[in-house]
């Protein structure tokens, strides 16, 4: 599936929820089912410290593509991480670097990304971008 198709799929998945709490229920489920992050990699090198939630991110490059693993101590953040990974993991650095990450706002999670919240998620997106830009 192309990057655009994948984003569209997520936007459509979210469109069925009118209620905020249903959106959160969905994210919480996604968060709970996120592939476990290796405990030994929960080091300061991988930590993206936010004001409230902490996020750990690890990137690996294989066959010219970037593969991400991540975790958070907050479950809603973890749910959003899971979305981001499903969209960006396995893409080429060029594809990721060219993307605007706007779909997160499109599914109504913009406030979770507001820099004023200073949470780990904003920094996580910045870090994914940087990793992609550095190839």
């Amino acid at each position, binding site marked *: 599936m192309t990057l655009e198709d994948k984003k569209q799929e997520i936007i459509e998945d979210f469109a069925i929820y009118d209620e*905020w*709490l249903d959106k*959160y*229920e969905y994210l*919480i489920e996604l968060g709970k089912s996120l592939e476990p992050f290796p405990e030994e990699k929960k080091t300061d090198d991988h930590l993206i410290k936010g*004001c*409230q*939630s*902490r996020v750990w991110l690890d990137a690996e490059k294989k066959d010219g593509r970037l593969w991400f693993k991540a975790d958070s*101590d*907050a*479950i*809603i*953040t973890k749910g959003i991480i899971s979305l981001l990974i499903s969209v960006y993991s396995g893409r080429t650095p060029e594809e990721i670097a060219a993307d605007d990450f706007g779909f997160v706002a499109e599914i109504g999670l913009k406030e*979770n990304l507001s820099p004023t919240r200073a*949470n780990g998620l904003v920094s996580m997106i910045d870090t994914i971008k940087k990793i992609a830009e550095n190839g």
Partner: protein
Amino acid sequence: MSISEIRAKFPILDTKVYGKSLVYLDNAASAQRPVSVVRRWEQLVNSENANIHRAVHKLAADATEAYEQARDCVRDFINAASREEIVFTSGATASINLVAFSFGEAFIKPGDEVIVSVAEHHSNIVPWQMLCQRKNAVLKVLDIRENGELAIDELEKLISQRTKIVAISHISNVLGLVNPVQEIVRFCHSKNVPVLVDGAQGIVHETVDVQALDCDFYAFSGHKIYAATGTGVLYGKKRWLDQMPPYMGGGEMIHSVSFAGTTYAPLPGKFEAGTQNFNAVPTLIPAIEFVKACRSSQEVEEEQAKILDYVYTKLTNDNRVTLYGVPRGNKVPLFSFAVKGVHHEDLALILDKMGIATRSGQMCAEPLMDRLGVTGLLRISFAPYNTLDEARYFIECLHKAIGMLL
């Protein structure tokens, strides 16, 4: 004044968030403003706007009078001995920075000591750290007991010949406990050590009489007691303020300026350099009137007591919840807690969607979070416009949110 009358004074309380009625429980961060404050603010901008203390024209005279009336009003509110002891600042943080700088310049030498508690807001830690760095002085930390109370018995061991000032909050912005500041002041004075009280939360919940308290400095912000943002007060005993050099140089704070040397204005002007927040400071008058009206309302007092009792009981009886700041006797309706297995940010996000504004995170008290062994907490803080029904709704929503997350 009834609670419904009070609520009618705050149009923002009718706001809908995500289609739900707003329940504002983040009052410890900033209170809302009543219409009396907003109207006065508007009036000052529309009809009395001119720079103060200078020009001879009518508007300037009106603006100056409004500003200086606010000083008299604050003096009366906290029972300071004289209006010279009331310095206007931009908030409690600015007030503490002023003391840390100016008192530090006058009295702190290398090797001297400053004492703060582990439960302070960053605003009552960092200015002292900066001072200690600047002067090669030592910052010492008073601990808390397991229940959140200050370990005041340890103060005796901590205080020494080198201790030059003790800075302590009246009420911790996390623990919601009234500290025994009078006792602390008495003890410190017996060792000839002055005390600064960070009253950012204290002024909200307690009737403050700085002469009875006998503290040397008392700092608070206007926006937490319903006045315009960007207003703040530093009370300082005249004998200290007289000995302290100015914090900032500029207009207003001078008596005479020449390149041969400058002399400073008498108190309180010496500490009010530059153009003051003259559109906002006079809103302290209607704000203080509102605080006084709330304090004299039996209905408010009873409702606040019910809220305190209800929330306290619910939180302490829930074995998933850990409340920090436990002693019931000196608790104000400000609760910070953790829920086992649940992140505070998740709770705050879900509660927000239910219409409830809470605070989550470290609450500008990272050393206290470390001391408690948590990465953050959820905090709710009540004001006189909050009702027991809102407290009940909060508890109901908290249960729902925990259910979703566990």
